[in-house]
Structure formats: structure tokens, C-alpha cells
């Protein structure tokens, strides 16, 4: 079922494993689903000029991001035979090892779920106005950049 207005995808802080488990559990009543595909983005303790990333602070142009996400969702539902799609992205501080992105697609058949999940991840990384400020061990910071954003 498609939604008329943009659904909020943003959550404050990291995405907990228990939240992911709850999302999975909720789908046990949907007995027409044969496969789920999940992508999780985890904050990596990259080294930058000899300093380590301890966490990322995410900000977004929320209104625009939700409109873009609405368009992506519509496009993906047109292209793939999905039962449902859920997307969550962190705002604020997410520490190294914690999860900042959760994309979850379900379908009767695995191929649609897998392809839709991958395409959604690629599109949201390229199209959503979200920024990650990598906070480093010495209390300086570095603005992260995804390849191929506008």
C-alpha cells in the first residue's frame, strides 16, 4: 500500500538491534512474503590523517529528504513487486560500531526484495540531503562525502 504523504524516516541516535528485531517480527503475520532483504549501515572507525573516527553526527535537510525519499519509494514500488519497504536513518550522534541506516524490503520472491533493497540504498545515499560529520579522537572533525552526490 502506498502512502499519500512522506513518512518520517529519521530517528534520533543509533538504530538498536532490538528495533530491527521488532520490525522483522511484525512481518510474521504477512504470510505472502517469501524473502526479506535488509541493509544496515554501521559507523566505521576510519583513520583520517592518523586520527580515528569515534562517531558521526548526522544532520539533514529533513523536509527535502522526506520528499526525495517519497519519490524514491514510489519509483521502487513501481519497478519491483514488493510487499513492503521500511527505511530508517539516524540523526544526531552515532558511535563507531552502531547502526545509522536500516533499509528493509520484503517480497513474495527473493529477487525483487534483494534488488529493491540495493537500489534503495544506492539512491538514498546519492539523493538524500543528509550530512555526516565525522568526529575524531582529537575533537576535530571531518565532513564525510559520499561518491556521486549532486
Amino acid at each position, binding site marked *: 500500500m502506498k502512502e499519500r504523504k512522506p513518512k518520517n524516516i529519521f530517528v534520533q541516535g543509533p538504530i538498536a538491534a532490538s528495533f530491527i528485531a521488532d520490525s522483522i517480527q511484525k512481518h510474521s503475520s504477512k504470510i505472502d512474503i517469501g524473502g526479506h532483504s535488509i541493509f544496515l*549501515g554501521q559507523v566505521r572507525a576510519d583513520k583520517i590523517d592518523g586520527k580515528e573516527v569515534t562517531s558521526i553526527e*548526522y*544532520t*539533514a*535537510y529533513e*523536509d*527535502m*529528504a522526506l*520528499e526525495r525519499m517519497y519519490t524514491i519509494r514510489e519509483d521502487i514500488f513501481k519497478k519491483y513487486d514488493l510487499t513492503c519497504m521500511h527505511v530508517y*536513518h539516524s540523526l544526531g550522534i552515532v558511535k563507531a560500531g552502531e547502526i*545509522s*541506516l536500516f533499509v528493509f524490503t520484503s517480497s513474495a520472491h527473493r529477487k525483487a526484495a534483494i534488488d529493491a533493497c540495493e537500489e534503495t*540504498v544506492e539512491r*538514498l*545515499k*546519492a*539523493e*538524500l*540531503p*543528509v*550530512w*555526516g*560529520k565525522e568526529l575524531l579522537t582529537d575533537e576535530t572533525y571531518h*565532513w*564525510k*562525502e*559520499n561518491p556521486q*552526490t*549532486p
Partner: protein
Amino acid sequence: MSVKIILFGRLADIAGDSVSVDNVADTDSLVDSLNKRYPQLATTKYVIAVDKQVVTKNTVLNKKSMVALLPPFSGG
């Protein structure tokens, strides 16, 4: 005409979260005006969104335009 713009990420580090710019009729003149005021912006990569849509050509602005300067995205 005065236009209020919002800035994100490293652009906000340079010029703050929001800036009012006077006497700008379109996005090209907005950029000229900003570059004079914040020379660092001229060498920083970004795109302009008007009313939540990225614009790639010069775009006429009105006083209700929502203008945002967006540095390269890094969500996910």
C-alpha cells in the same frame, strides 16, 4: 528583494545556518552576492535547492522561495 537561505554541513561552518541576502532576483545573482560576502564559499562544492528541488540552471527567485545550499551528501 531579500531572500533567506539556509545552509548545511560545511557551508554552515563558513556562513552559519541561515543568511539573508538583499537585492537578488535569481540564483546566479545570489551566488555572486554570497561569494563576495563569504569568499570561502566560492571554493566550496555545493548545489542549490529552490523549494526543495535541486536546480542546475539559473532560477528566478521570489520572496517566498525556499533556498538551500547543499554540500555533497553523506548519509547512510
